[in-house]
């Protein structure tokens, strides 16, 4: 195998796939990237057996062929090379010679046959949607994924294909984020699947603003085809909890807030929320919200936010991190905050179908 390409092209290709490679793995082949050169492109594939990514870059291929090379090492070498033109030649024993300007590197790889093939998707249910829609949806939900490994069904985002809608849901038991995306697909394609966190993170990196993504759902696995890159992942087995149970039926009070103003106030006040109790209080009174944080032996912070509010006076406390997470990830200028009372969950909404349910913390006194 022999090819040459520009440094930028190769780096770009490697960056897309190298995150999947886990640093500590029991199978040496999994720290390698599979290179397949043919007709003007070199395909790159990495996998950790749970998630796999295939990408590629344009190159002048002099001799087709395939091999695997240590991904991290290859990436660091390419990044440091002095000149922009790089040529790579691999001999029969999977040793790659990399030349660029005055530099020469030789790194040893493993044969292509040892690399685990990405799963095949036959008879899979295929749905196509805009990349932008999926990216936005994941951005609005992924931060609420649970990291508690004992609740493994929550370690991912629920993709619920139902009634010409794709619903994305993530929760960790204290908060829940949910997005609806309008989408057309046949009745037979309705399904509830859980895509694990790692795949979601990678997917968010790969998705762009243009073009479509083709989603293929097979048994126990899923593939996202983004034209020039492909991500496949195992699905989390099990039933996602009945999230609808969490959503409060009606709200008593609604305030409309400017997202950024609210976020900035929260960020400032939360500087004085203690690590231990980690709560900030929102005190609602006529046309005003007072945000306070208070840590014994450290100090306190207070900030007022004028709003249109005509309801009764009351206070409610939240974990500031949990309240700021959706505000950071939404793009809308205006958000609605629905509340019932100090013990019931608060709900953040925007103009489009999105919902964030957040449990209040107990207010002492």
């Amino acid at each position, binding site marked *: 195998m022999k090819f040459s390409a520009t440094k930028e092209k190769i780096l770009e290709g490697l960056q897309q796939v190298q995150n999947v490679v886990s640093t500590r793995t029991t199978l040496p082949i999994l720290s390698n990237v599979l290179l397949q050169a043919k007709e003007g492109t070199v395909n790159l594939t990495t996998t950790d057996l749970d998630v796999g990514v295939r990408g590629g870059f344009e190159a002048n291929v002099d001799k087709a062929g395939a091999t695997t090379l240590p991904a991290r090492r290859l990436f660091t070498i390419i990044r440091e090379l002095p000149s922009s033109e790089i040529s790579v030649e691999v001999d029969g024993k999977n040793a790659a010679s990399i030349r660029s300007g005055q530099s020469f590197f030789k790194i040893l790889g493993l044969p292509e046959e040892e690399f685990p093939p990405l799963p095949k998707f036959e008879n899979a249910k295929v749905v196509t949607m805009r990349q932008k829609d999926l990216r936005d949806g994941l951005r609005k939900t992924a931060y609420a994924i649970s990291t508690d490994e004992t*609740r493994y069904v929550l370690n991912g985002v629920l993709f619920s294909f139902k009634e010409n809608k794709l619903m994305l849901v993530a929760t960790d*038991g*204290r908060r829940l984020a949910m997005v609806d995306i309008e989408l057309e697909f046949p009745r037979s394609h309705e399904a509830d699947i859980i895509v694990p966190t790692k795949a979601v993170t990678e997917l968010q990196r790969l998705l762009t603003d243009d073009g479509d993504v083709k989603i293929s759902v097979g048994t126990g696995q899923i593939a996202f085809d983004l034209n020039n890159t492909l991500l496949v992942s195992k699905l989390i087995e099990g039933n996602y909890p009945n999230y609808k149970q969490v959503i409060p039926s009606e709200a008593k009070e609604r305030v409309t807030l400017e997202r950024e103003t609210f976020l900035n106030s929260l960020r400032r006040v939360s500087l004085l929320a203690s690590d231990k109790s980690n709560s900030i209080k929102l005190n609602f009174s006529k046309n005003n919200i007072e945000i306070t944080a208070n840590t014994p032996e450290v100090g306190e912070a207070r900030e007022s936010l004028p709003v249109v509010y005509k309801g009764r006076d009351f206070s409610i406390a939240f974990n500031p991190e949990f309240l700021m997470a959706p505000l950071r990830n939404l793009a809308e200028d205006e958000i609605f905050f629905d509340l*019932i*009372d100090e013990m019931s969950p608060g709900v953040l909404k925007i103009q489009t179908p999105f919902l964030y349910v957040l449990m209040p913390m107990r207010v002492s006194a």
Partner: protein
Amino acid sequence: MDERCKALWEKLSAALKPQVSTDTYKRWFSAVELTKATEDSLTFRVPNNIYQFWIESNHMAALQSAITSAVGAPRSVQFFSSTDSDNENDFGTPEAQKSYRSSSKATGLGLGLNPRNTFESFVVGPNNQIAHAASLAVAQAPARTYNPLFVYGGVGLGKTHLMQAIGQYVWAKKKTSRVMYLSSELFINEFIDAIQHNTLVKFRKRYRQADLLLIDDIQFLGGKERSQEEFFHTFNTLFDGHKQIVLSSDRPASEIANLEHRLVSRFEWGLTAELQPPDIETRLAILRKKARALQIKLHDDVYQFLALRIRSNVRRLEGALMRVASFASLSGKELTQETIEHLLKDILLEERRQTVTIEQIQRKVAEHFDVRLADMTSKRRPASIAFPRQVAMYLARELTKASLNEIGDAFGGRDHGTVLHACKLVKKRIKEQDNIRQTVSFIDGALQR
């Protein structure tokens, strides 16, 4: 839901309602059923796993305080969802389910004995040889050789296991024998109940007719004067009637605070056997046995690692094994040392905390208060030295497993009363003075790093 659970749940929900909003109650608790209530745990059935997740994350504090006000003491809470049967892995650890099932199919004992705690499942090592041999002798010939048998040792070293094994052995051999197994706390509660309802005669009859009386955690009798007196008479009646008595405690009888001398001397009458933390070989054997019982297969290195790192407590050892095994089976990932370390980081941290020695404590305290290390053991006692010394004693009591006497010896041959006084004093001052609390917790933190 049987009648008792139903009544208890009604009491519980009444206590719960004011603590959560009406909507929350209707949404999360109206569909919950209490299916099982034991001495130390309550099992709730929930419609599906979102109830468990949400209640655990958000309403545990309210639920616990409702439990406390309904039954008088906190209980451990377990959930299982009705959909579990068709989706085993959907919930909790396999262990939790197993224990639920095996106990619900109780083996006919109904004595509060766990059928898994038998002599066969007890792993014998040099640390517990004597206790095991004595227990077996007692089980084979009750009230002949060692009466009473007094077993003591730290948390999770197998006291309860041995006692229950004796109970089951005796009961299995002779189904008509009256085996009574209970914790001293239950004894006290029933006694108080009996006083309240004027049923002392019934209470006495019940206990004084036992052929084998097993009382766990006898140290809780300390300070309960009337209970001690009642127990004293029960003890004498049984002993004179040649009935076997087996007691367990977390410390030697002589070290139980506020225990009457006549009881102490009686406890030391028969055989006293100590359970010590297992050595590494025994720990390995325990892990393998447990793994076989649970049908877990793990790499040898994993057992080695667990046995090496978790030294102090068998229960914790088994918990770590369960955690690693369930992680392995759920994630299907290879277990590397890093993943295990990550998985068990809280346990390993706890472990490390227990390897603090008295000498380290003295050194750290001396350094912090800027006194000489020699002052820790010297006879001098100006306040500038005495107080740091008391803090060091207090920390030694809290952080090490040394007995009062051992601590006293380490501080220049002081007697245990001095140490006890120091601990009380420091505890009191921690409560009253913020700066002292901060100092002590700072040293504590520094020691555990």
